[in-house]
C-alpha cells in the first residue's frame, strides 16, 4: 500500500470531477445521510461510466441505485442498499434478483474496520461479533483466527479495504484544498483509505480552514484530497446538514418511477440527461 500525498487541484465543476474517475474504478461512497456528490453521480451517468465497483461506507442509497439503473456498475460491496423512508432501492433490487450485478454482502462495522486498517497502513484488523453469520461464509476477504492473546477465542478479521476513489460532497472547500465535512467521520475514513479523493462542495472559503480552531476539527486535510470542484446544491435531492434538507417528495417520486425500467428511463431523461436547476 502506497497512498499519495496530494496537492489538491481545483476543477471547474462536477463534469470535470466525473472525467477523472475512470471506468472500472472501485469507488467508496457514503450513505445518503452523509453529503453525497449527487451532481457528480449525475455527471458519471452522463459520461456513460462503465464497470464501476461501489463500496457502501457502510450502506448505499440513491447514488448507487441511479448508477446501477444506468448500467454503470459491475459490482457492489455494501451492508445494505436502501432509500430510507422511500423504501427499497428499486434498480438495485431488480439487478440483484436478475443477477445482473455482483453483490458482496457485508455488515457496517466490518466495512469501517477494513477502511480503518488502511488508515493505519496495516493489512487487517479484528472485530468482535459476526461469527455464525452467513456473511462470513460468502465474503471473500474475511477470515476467522484464534485470538493469539487468549487461545480458544475465535475472532474475525477484516482485510484492509483500499478504494481507488473516494467520492463525496462537502459544505465547504478552501483555497488550500481542505474540505469541511463536520461530524461526518465516515467521509474522513473513506478519504484517508482511498488512492484518490474527489470532493464536490457547496461554497469555497478563502484561505486555509486549518488556521481556524473551530473549523479545523471538521476538516479533511488537503493531503488526502486529490481534487475539488464547486457544485452548489450538489447533494440534491439529498441534503447537506445545516444548509438544506432532504427533498422527501422527490425521493418518493424517484422510488415510484424507478420501479420499472421505463419509469427509470423517464427519470434519467428528465433529471439527468437534461441539465436541471435544482
Amino acid at each position, binding site marked *: 500500500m502506497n497512498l499519495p500525498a496530494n496537492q489538491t487541484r481545483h476543477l471547474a465543476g462536477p463534469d470535470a470531477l466525473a472525467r477523472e474517475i475512470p471506468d472500472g474504478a472501485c469507488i467508496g461512497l457514503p*450513505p445518503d*445521510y*452523509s453529503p453525497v456528490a449527487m451532481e457528480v453521480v449525475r455527471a458519471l451517468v452522463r459520461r456513460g461510466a462503465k464497470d464501476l465497483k461501489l463500496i457502501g*461506507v*457502510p*450502506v448505499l442509497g440513491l447514488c448507487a441505485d441511479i448508477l446501477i439503473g444506468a448500467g454503470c456498475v459491475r459490482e457492489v460491496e*455494501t*451492508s*445494505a*442498499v*436502501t432509500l*430510507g*423512508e*422511500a423504501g*427499497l*432501492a428499486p434498480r*438495485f*433490487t431488480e439487478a*440483484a*434478483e436478475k443477477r445482473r450485478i455482483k453483490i458482496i*454482502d*457485508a*455488515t*457496517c*462495522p*466490518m466495512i*469501517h474496520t477494513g477502511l*480503518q486498517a488502511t488508515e493505519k497502513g496495516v493489512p487487517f484488523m479484528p*472485530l*468482535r*461479533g*459476526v*461469527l*455464525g*453469520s*452467513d*456473511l462470513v461464509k460468502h465474503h471473500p476477504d474475511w477470515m476467522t483466527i484464534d485470538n493469539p492473546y487468549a487461545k*480458544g*477465542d*475465535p*475472532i474475525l478479521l477484516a482485510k484492509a479495504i483500499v478504494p481507488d476513489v473516494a467520492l463525496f460532497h462537502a459544505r465547504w472547500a478552501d483555497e488550500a484544498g481542505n474540505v469541511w465535512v463536520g*461530524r*461526518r*467521520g*465516515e*467521509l*474522513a*475514513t473513506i478519504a484517508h483509505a482511498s488512492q484518490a479523493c474527489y470532493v464536490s462542495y457547496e461554497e469555497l472559503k478563502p484561505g486555509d480552514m486549518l488556521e481556524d480552531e473551530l473549523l479545523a476539527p471538521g476538516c479533511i486535510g488537503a493531503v488526502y484530497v486529490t481534487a475539488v470542484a464547486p457544485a452548489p446544491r450538489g447533494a440534491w435531492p439529498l*441534503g447537506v*446538514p445545516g444548509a438544506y*434538507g*432532504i427533498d*422527501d417528495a422527490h425521493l*418518493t417520486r424517484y422510488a415510484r418511477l424507478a420501479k420499472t425500467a421505463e419509469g427509470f428511463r423517464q427519470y434519467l431523461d428528465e433529471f439527468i440527461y437534461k441539465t436541471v436547476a435544482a
Partner: protein
Amino acid sequence: MPVSYAKEELLAVTIARLIGDARHVAVGAASPIPAMAVFLLRERNNGMPRVSLLQKRSGNPFTEGSRELFDLAGQGRIDVFFLGGAQIDGDANINLVEAEGRRFPGSFGSAFMYFAAKKTILFREEHSPRVLVKKVEYVSAPGWSPPEVERRGGPVALLTGKALFAWQKDKRCFRLESVHPDSSAADVRANTGFDYDAPAAVPQTAVPTPEELVSIRGPVARVIAENYPGFAKRVWAA
C-alpha cells in the same frame, strides 16, 4: 371506556415496557415505532433513557460518523437495540438479505449489533408463516452462538403485529407471552412457521393508557415527524 388507538401506538407502548429501565437505547435505520417507544419513555422519565437515533436528521448524537454507534456497542455502552428481518426463525436467527427469490436491502449492522448490544428486541409487524419461518434462508445475524464465541448480548423478545414472544436463551426457543386484542392464540399458532412454547391461557397484550396516548400524540409525535415524516403522516394524518 375503551380508548381507540392505532396499531403503531399499541406496538410502541409494548416496546416501551420491554425497554424497562435501560440507560442507553440505540435505534437503527427505518425504525419509527421503536423510536416512538423510546421517546415515550423519555417523556415519562425525565429524559431517560439516553437515545441514539441513527437516523436523526438534526442534532444527531454522533460526532465520529456512522462507525461511532458500533464502537459504542463494541465497548458495551448500548443497552438495547432493535432488529427485524425479512425472515425470523425459531432459533431467533434473522435474514435481511434474500428470501423466496426476492432481494432485501441487506444486513446493515445486525451481524455485529446482535452480539454487542446487551439486549436486542426483535420487531416485525408482519406476522405470517412467510416471515416467521422454521429456518431462515440466509443468516444475516445468528440468534445464539456456541460457548467459545464471545457474545455480550442477544435476543430478549420478538414483537409482531399479532403477538409478543419472550426468548428463552437456555431452551433456545420462543415462548408466547401475550396476543394483541385483534388476534388470538390460535391465530398466532396458525401464522407462525416455527414451533414455540405457550401457556394454557395466553394473556392479552396491555393496550395504551389514555396518559400514554396523550404523550404519544403530543411531544412524541412531534419528534417522530421531524425524523420520519412519511410515517408520521400515515399514523397521525390530520
